């Protein structure tokens, strides 16, 4: 059963980073997904975008995909580590309810990116996911292609502390990993992001993003002012809490009109919660959160996220 030893040339893909994204977006658009633009508030993962966090709640079907830049301040390496980034790109997909052939569709999406599965080894290995601060968890797999984790595949069971019905499938493609793998480069910064159609001259990932990795690492680890971060955190949290208190009153008020309920700015409240989450990550990267504080601060973010989710579910029922 062992394979022959002859080593024909391993051909890297000619597809650029952006080609891969285009292909993925087109593939899923053709299967009925709304292709959204990435969310414009800092998030640590595609899951935190309201396109996922809020749309998975309630009974309304939904198919959406988007390429979400995901910021994790503590993962920054000043652009010096070839495999780790402060900000990476997750292509995030929500299928609610999941079609019965969701796995087969996923495999086709890999083929759409030029991966010939006949020439690769693919495994679905157990990997369950949870985001405690978002009251969210699910079961699923890490999809391994030739030993590389290329996708997190999760069946969401709970979000914002609420049981989901129907549940949804969440696919998260790690785009930098996939591109580096297919282009066969050893450093993320060597990924070809785009290629000039006339000259063929490449623009690399490094040219597009290296400065950002360096400067944001400096900010996240050295320059960010801890007292000010706390001020921001407290201020965003206070505003979000005040809004949540009002939301509770309006959404529970039987006399309030549907219009009144619908126009309540819960989406803005959620943005404030996201701000808090990102500030927490910054404080964490600065080493400003002690072990004893940590659980408490996560709890404060959870209160906001879960509070918004509950209110959002009520708001959906009202419409």
């Amino acid at each position, binding site marked *: *059963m*062992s394979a022959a030893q*002859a080593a*024909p040339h391993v051909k890297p893909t000619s597809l650029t980073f952006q080609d891969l994204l285009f292909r993925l977006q087109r593939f899923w658009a053709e299967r009925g997904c709304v292709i959204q633009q990435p969310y414009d508030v800092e998030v640590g993962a595609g899951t935190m975008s309201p396109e996922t966090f809020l749309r998975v709640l309630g009974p309304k079907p939904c198919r959406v995909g988007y390429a979400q830049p995901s910021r994790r301040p503590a993962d920054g390496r000043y652009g010096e580590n070839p495999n780790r980034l402060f900000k990476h790109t997750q292509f995030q997909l929500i299928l609610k309810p999941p079609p019965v052939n969701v796995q087969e569709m996923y495999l086709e999406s890999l083929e759409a990116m030029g991966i010939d599965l006949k020439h690769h080894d693919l495994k679905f290995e157990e990997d369950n996911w949870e985001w405690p601060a978002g009251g969210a968890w699910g*079961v699923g797999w890490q999809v391994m292609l030739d*030993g590389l984790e290329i996708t997190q595949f999760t069946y969401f069971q709970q979000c914002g502390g609420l049981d989901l019905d129907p549940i949804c499938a969440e696919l998260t493609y790690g785009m930098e990993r996939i591109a580096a793998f297919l282009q*066969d480069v050893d450093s993320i910064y060597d990924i070809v992001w785009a290629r000039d159609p006339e000259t063929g001259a490449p623009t690399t990932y490094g040219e597009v993003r290296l400065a950002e990795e360096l400067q944001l690492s400096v900010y996240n680890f050295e320059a960010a002012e801890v007292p000010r971060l706390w001020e921001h955190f407290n201020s965003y949290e206070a505003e979000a809490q005040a809004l949540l208190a009002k939301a509770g009153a309006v959404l529970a008020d039987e006399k309030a009109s549907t219009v009144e309920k619908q126009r309540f700015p819960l989406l803005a409240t959620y943005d404030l919660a996201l701000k808090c989450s990102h500030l927490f990550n910054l404080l964490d990267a600065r080493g400003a959160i002690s072990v004893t504080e940590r659980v408490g601060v996560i709890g404060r973010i959870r209160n906001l996220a879960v509070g918004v989710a509950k209110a959002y579910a009520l708001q959906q029922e009202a419409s």
Partner: protein
Amino acid sequence: MADFLIEIGLEEVPARMIAGAEAELGRRVSELLTRERLLAADAKIATFSTPRRLAVLASGVLEKQADTEEQLTGPSWKVAFKDGEPTPAAQAFAKKAGVAVAELKKVETPKGEYVGARVLRAGHTAEEILAAGLPKEVLAIYWAKNMYWRAGKPERFVRPVRWVAALMDASIVPLEIAGIAAGNVSRGHRVLHGEAPVTIASAAAYKETLRKAFVAVDAAERRQAIRKALDAATRTVAGARWREDEPLVETVVHLTEWPTVILGNFEPEYLALPEEVLVTVMRDHQKYFAVEDAQGNLAPHFLAVLNTVADQDGAAIIRHGNARVLRARFKDARFFWDVDQKTTLAERVESLKYVTFQKELGSYAWKTEQNLAVARALAATVTNLDVVFSEPALVKAVELAKTDLTTELVKEFTELQGVIGGLYARAQGLGERVALAIYEQYTPASMEDEIPVSVEGQLLGLADRIQTIVAMFGIGNAPTGSKDPFALRRAANAIVKILAESELPLTLSDVLNASGAEGANKTQVEAFLRERLQFYLKDARGFAYDVVNAVLAAGADDVRDAIARAEALTAARGSEDFLAVSAAFKRIKNILRQAEEKGFALGSPRSVKLASEAQRLADAAAVLAPQVAALREQRAYGEALGRIATLRPAVDAFFDKVMVLDSDATVRGAHLGLIDEVLRSFSTIADFSEIVAG
């Protein structure tokens, strides 16, 4: 007779859960068929599994249950028939039994005459029974983690059920599981076969049909294929061998439907990293087997088990891809190693204040302080008993034991805590004793694992674990039932194992006393340790339960002594004389208990003239008692038990001829005093009355 096949098609089931679920499904099918009288005497149950399916093939299934006849008894004859005419009671009974009133018969019972009816029950077909009963059996399979997938959440299962095949020979059994009607169609390997349906012509053809679709449904067959393929791939490197790893073989068996193996390489420069790190990356993170050269040193190769069979191009691509991932991981590990060296373990002590051990208790700085006190107390005890070790090395090891929790490498590879600390201690020149003790502090991790080789490592391991157990019990975190979230049973098992398998002259109470436990907390932990010792003797050492009970009744503190006594008792238990003496001891205990209940006083056997058989027993016991006591002192338990067995003729004659509970109170008292002395003198090795004959 027919063959019945059920196949549940699933999205990939977690590898760790498959073997248990496969066995459970087999048991459930077998029990259902047995309960319903549908299995022939020579029936066979075979089970199959892959990541995408669980299946059972039952050969020798009856097509139909045998018809049965049942005798029902109704109201009394007098109530049912008045003047020969049926009353409403008779009519109601006939209706319930499904017979005409005219068919009711008189039956004689001890309570008088009653109305009887014979009811014929036609057997159901196997198809009917299976369609009605099997779906709930399948859905009742235990899974460590479940999920919902259908709207309305009608059922939970490990992963979504995607197809069901159910066949009685060639015909479909009309059952439905999780909204899916069973058919005769299965699915093949995702890539090698593709999405084309795989039709199973008959139940018996299951295995061969799936084989043609590139699915080896028999896990044992895949296990064998993987082992052979690992051998074959390794042979391409002269003198090389793959590192045996049973759990990893099991994992890859349950990750593949059609396994093959490739051998890949990595740059020899990474061999400069510690072997522990390399093997952890390969085994735990990549599920690769490590390869060693003829001298047993790690070689720069890895073996990956694939779930496909690749052509030449494919093999090159897959090998290249896997090597690329491994190289990146090794590069990371080397980076972490280099970064970690910039801060010594000693410099890390300070930061332990910021690492929580347990919220209600304190940080790892607190934990280290506590461990130090326990270790010092243990050291004092063993020093008095002439054990050779270095106390300064022990103290240093305890002080630094937890500092590797702050290193990047342990944050990345948590399973290497302790090991990394030990390697760093060595690299930082802290001395071999210190390094080894830190390295070994978490061993044994299981009952199969070895104990630390160094005395310092053993003492550190004991101190760390007893401190944790006592502190956790103190805040109400003792394990209950199947819940043991802090793995305290495992910690206590390790304490018992270290005491059993090391040469430390320590007893369980020495260890407990060193922890400083007091009052109810101490009593609780004491009972817990005893229960773990019992577990160790029974489950790890395989002693019979009665031997364990007998031995522990005579002392449960000195672990190695308990083992020696259990060994001697197990050997002695084979002799008839010994069993007879054991039976006599049980009788003695019973008589003494009766005597106590009746308020009979114990007297001295020397106060009256005894009957000759009683005097013989007294004489024999008087001669043997000091010998046995001396042998017990020398721990010559086998010989001591042999001597005790020689009591048999005297004991037998005594019970044969002597009325123990004599009507004369003085004689009775003397007899009771005699057997009480015998019992006491000879129960110091084990309480023989616990021994069960046969």
